[in-house]
Each structure stands twice: as C-alpha cells, then as structure tokens.
C-alpha cells in the first residue's frame, strides 16, 4: 500500500514543484515576509530616529531660563530657543518660578509628528535630570547626597536556563505562533487542490479507476500535503531566524538580542518531531475538509473558520507559559505550541513531548482513516 501511496505522493510533489508561482507564494514569501517586515520596519524606525537626532528643533522655554537646564537640554537635543507661536515644543514653568520650589511643568508638543514626539521625550529626559540636580542641591544643604536616600541595593539574579537568557524566551514567544500559522496556511492550498480541486477538474474519478487501493490514494495525498505544509513552516522558520540573527541594534522590532542563542540537540530533535507530527495533523484535517467540498471555493469556505481557530489558539497561548496540566497536551495545536515553547527555552519535558507527538499522530491517523473511508465511499464520486 505504501508503495502506491508513494506513487501518488511523488506525482503530486512533482506537479507542485513545477509551478514557480506556487513555490514563490508557499515558500519564498513566508521566508521573506518576516525579515522584510521586522528588519524593514526596524530600519525605517532607526532612520527616522537618526534624522530626528540631526534636526534642530525650535523650543520655547517660559518661566525659567536657568542655564543648568538649557545646558542639560542641549546635551539631549539640538535646539534653538524661539517664541511660543513659532516653537515646535513649548516648556512652561509657572510664572515667578524659583529653582528648587515645587512646581508643575507643562511640555506642549504635537504627537502627530514622530520627530517632535522623539524631541519631546528627549526634553522630558532633560527635565528629569534637572529635577534630580535640584533635589541634590536641596539635600546638600542638609549634608546629604542623593544616594543617601537609597537604603536598599536591589539586584536581580536570573536563574532561568541559559537558552532563555540568551533570547530563547523571545523565540518561544514568536516562533511557535508563526510556525503554526504557516504550517496550516501552507497545507490549505495544497490540501484543497489535491482533493476538491481534483473533484472540480473531474480527474479524481479517473484516479479512482486504477489498481491502487483508495486508502493508498488517501495516504499519498495526506503525505504530500504534510510535506508541503512542513516546507512552508520551515520557510517561515528560516525567515524568522534571518530576522532575529541579522537584526542590528535598534533595527529590530523584536527588541531582545538572540544572536547568542544556541538550541541544544535534544531541543532541536523535539522541534523537528513536533513539526512533522503537526504537519501530518494539519494535512489530515485539511484533506478531510477538502474531501467534503465539491469545489476549491467551497473547501475554502469550510477551511477559513478552522484557520481562525488555529490563529486564536496561537494568539491566546502566545504569552502563556507551558502548562503542567497533562490533558492540555492531548489537544492538537495547543500542545505543539506549549512544547515548542519548552524547546526554545531549553527545558523540554519528555512526558509533554511524548503525549503531544502521540496525540498529533492519533489525530492524523484518524483523519487519514476518514479520508480513506470517504475515498472508498460513493460520497466522494457523487460530487465528481
């Protein structure tokens, strides 16, 4: 049976990889999407900040012309003093303000301009330093320094595994979500085309009038969809690695550096097993749905709600820590996301991994049985 399934698998794969447009949309776009999105946006933000740093702003300073303040402002920002009407940012101290007295300071700016927003934040920083300076002066009158008010020296000691500290937590947050999303979206096109698409084209009837068992046809198609969804997920993964490894300081939206991150061999094996079994599960689900639909369009309308469930599972678990509740590892998608998080953080629980893999395989097997049963029934040809 598996020899026949392999014949189907090989033909589908050959047909798929001969279509350049499909290759671009399934593999190249997911690989490029994240780097372009994250690094591109990070670069734009970085460029805008650089431009803002080189710009000389017009600032109006009312009620206080303390040279210590203007010096601190000059350290933070290139500016010239101007009248309030022409100024981009206006700093207003109360009338007759005396340095060191309690007062409310207003910083008026236009947040619709990102450059002015940047400049206002820099000026707020200068005002805070000025505030500290004034406080130190007051304390010095009593023979005290600012540090004398700090009686506790608080230090954080992180005992998380090295994988977490070197960026694994960032990966655990983002990668499972994107992998699951692209795993499913990758299987959708291929899965619908090979089932409802074949029905629509009338080629499924001819395929069924042959010497191969219909169960072998079902397995061949599921295997094909699994490989495509796996490749789509791997393309996403590569894209994500490019984003994280090549993002420069201030040029990435992910914030944390992950360049020091190293995944252990066991975590990598766990990740590969998870991806393979989840791809099988996704392929089985999409193929079952495709078998019920008469056309690709109808199949798409069935798949979209399922896809939304997957996205929802990805979003809701994004900020969750892996659960200790073993029953959760029986639920596909949720289990994969949790164990992927464990893998990236270098703390894979073998029981969670085994339960997840078995659960995914069981669901995929049941899906394959349903597909085989549909292929063996008249239902599949009544719509051909």
């Amino acid at each position, binding site marked *: 049976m598996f020899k026949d399934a392999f014949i189907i698998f090989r033909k589908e794969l050959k047909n798929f990889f001969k279509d350049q447009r499909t290759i671009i949309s399934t593999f190249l776009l997911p690989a490029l999407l994240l780097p372009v999105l994250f690094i591109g946006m990070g670069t734009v933000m970085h460029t805008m900040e650089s431009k803002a740093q080189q710009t000389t702003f017009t600032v109006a300073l009312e009620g206080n012309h303390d040279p210590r303040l203007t010096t601190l402002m000059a350290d933070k920002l290139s500016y010239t003093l101007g009248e309030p009407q022409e100024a981009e940012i206006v700093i207003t101290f109360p009338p007759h303000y005396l340095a060191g007295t309690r007062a409310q300071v207003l910083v008026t700016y236009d947040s619709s301009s990102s450059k002015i927003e940047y400049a206002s934040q820099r000026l707020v920083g200068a005002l805070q330093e000025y505030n500290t300076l004034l406080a130190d002066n007051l304390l010095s009158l009593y023979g005290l320094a600012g540090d004398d008010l700090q009686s506790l020296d608080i230090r954080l000691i992180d005992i998380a595994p090295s994988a977490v500290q070197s960026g694994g937590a960032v990966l655990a947050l983002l990668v499972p979500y994107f992998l699951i999303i692209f795993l499913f979206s990758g299987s959708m096109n291929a899965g619908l085309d090979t089932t409802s698409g074949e029905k629509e084209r009338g080629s499924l009837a*001819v395929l069924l009038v042959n010497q191969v068992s219909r169960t072998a046809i079902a397995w061949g198609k599921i295997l094909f969809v699994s490989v495509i969804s796996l490749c789509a997920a791997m393309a996403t993964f590569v894209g994500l690695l490019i984003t994280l490894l090549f993002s420069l300081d201030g040029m990435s939206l992910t914030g944390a550096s992950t360049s020091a991150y190293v995944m252990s061999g066991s975590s990598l094996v766990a990740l590969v097993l998870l991806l393979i079994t989840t791809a099988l599960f996704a392929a089985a689900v999409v193929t079952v749905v495709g078998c019920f639909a008469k056309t690709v369009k109808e199949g798409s309308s069935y798949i979209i709600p399922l896809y939304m469930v997957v996205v929802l599972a990805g979003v809701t678990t994004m900020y969750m820590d892996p659960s200790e509740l073993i029953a959760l590892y029986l639920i596909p998608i949720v289990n994969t996301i949790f164990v992927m998080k464990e893998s990236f953080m270098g703390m894979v629980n073998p029981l969670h991994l085994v339960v997840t893999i078995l659960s995914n395989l069981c669901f995929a097997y049941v899906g394959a049985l349903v597909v085989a049963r549909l292929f063996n029934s008249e239902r599949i*040809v009544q719509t051909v």
Partner: protein
Amino acid sequence: MIVVENLSKSFKTRKATLAVLDKVSFTAYDGEVFGLLGPNGAGKTTALRTIATLLRPDGGTVAVDHYDSIRDSRSVRDSLGFLTSEMQLTGHLSGREMLQFFGALNHMPKEVIAARIEQLAHTFSMETYLDNPIARLSSGMKQKISIAISLIHEPQNIVFDEPTSNLDVLAVKVVSDFIRAAKAGGKCVVLSTHVLSDAQRLCDRIAILHQGEILIEGPLATLLHDSGTKDLEELFFQLINGK
C-alpha cells in the same frame, strides 16, 4: 465483455430519493462498439460510473469479463479503461509524465509503460506535444491525452463518456479510427455520446436510455428497419417524443 443486469441506482437528496436507473440491462460484447445514448439526465453517466466501480448498484449486477463490480472491483478496474466527460486535465506535468503516473498506478513495469506511451503517442498523433506541460495544451490535445490515460494499461474493455467532446474534425477522426481499430482488435467498447452521427458511424449496437429506463436496445440496422426510420436521429426523437 460487459454485462449489466437489472441495474438500479438512486441518490438520496435532503428532500427526496431520486431514482436515476431503473432495472437497466444490456450487454456489450468483445469485438463490438456498444452505444449508450440518451438525453441529458437520462442516467448514462451513472450507468458508466457504476460499470467503472465508482458507484455501487442499489439493485442488479454489473460484470466486466465475468468479474463482479462489487466483489472483484480491482479486477474490473484492471480490465477497464474509463474516460469521463468531465475530466479536465491541467497542471504542470507533461502528458508523458501523466501517462507514466497512471501506468505506475496500474503497476506496469517502467519499460512497458515507456513502450506503451510511444504506441499511444503514435496512435493519437501526440508526439509533438507529449513533453509540453498540460496546462499549455489546447483542449483537443488534452482530450487526446485523457483518452491515452484511460488506455495506458491496455484494457480489454473501454468505457468512453463523450470521447469526442472538445475535439476538432481531424482529432475526431483520430479517435474514431482508434475505436474502430479497438473493435477490430477484439476489444469491447461502450460509448456514450450526444453526437448521434458519431454513434451511427461507430456503433454496432445501441441502447437508448431515457429517464433511467432502456427504451430500445439492439443492432442499429435492425432497430432502424423495425421502426421504419431512416437514421438514428429520427429513431432517437421518435422514441423520446413518444415517451
């Protein structure tokens, strides 16, 4: 040889059960072309799909070379070449690759597949475009490849549903010549077509199916003589309108 006896088939819809075939019987012998004719919705496609083991009869039996379509479905498929009118070949594989695929599905050795492809390419004049992607071929070229796919395993029995649809005059002649050659070679050919002139030229015997029942069956010449009609078209409309 294909023997259909008292074949009944109905489909359940949400509102009702639709009887498509009602105790249909006919026999197509080796060395002849049997025409299954009828207007749209008569039940021709259902009958052909039941012969091809795609549908299970509700009542009656279908035997292909004495193999029962339910008990020995795989043997039936082995000795049957099936072409459906709805097949629209597409994709990026070439005609040769598709033929290789279907040859493999029929468990044929590679060298036998290669030889058979050359033979079919010559028969249907496909040599010039057999290695081009199917998506770039004309509908007539695709139809020829579809026919070749149904014949790749050299079946003894051939079931063709509208084989000349989408074909130009020259291609129709190629297919007609093949059907005659298959008959001369002792094959059993069941042909469903709405082109009555094709049926008159090619069929030795015909059955006219209407609303799931066989209205008439027999050698074409005998049927024309007995009914006093001059050609198949006149006979066809006489029967359909009379019903």
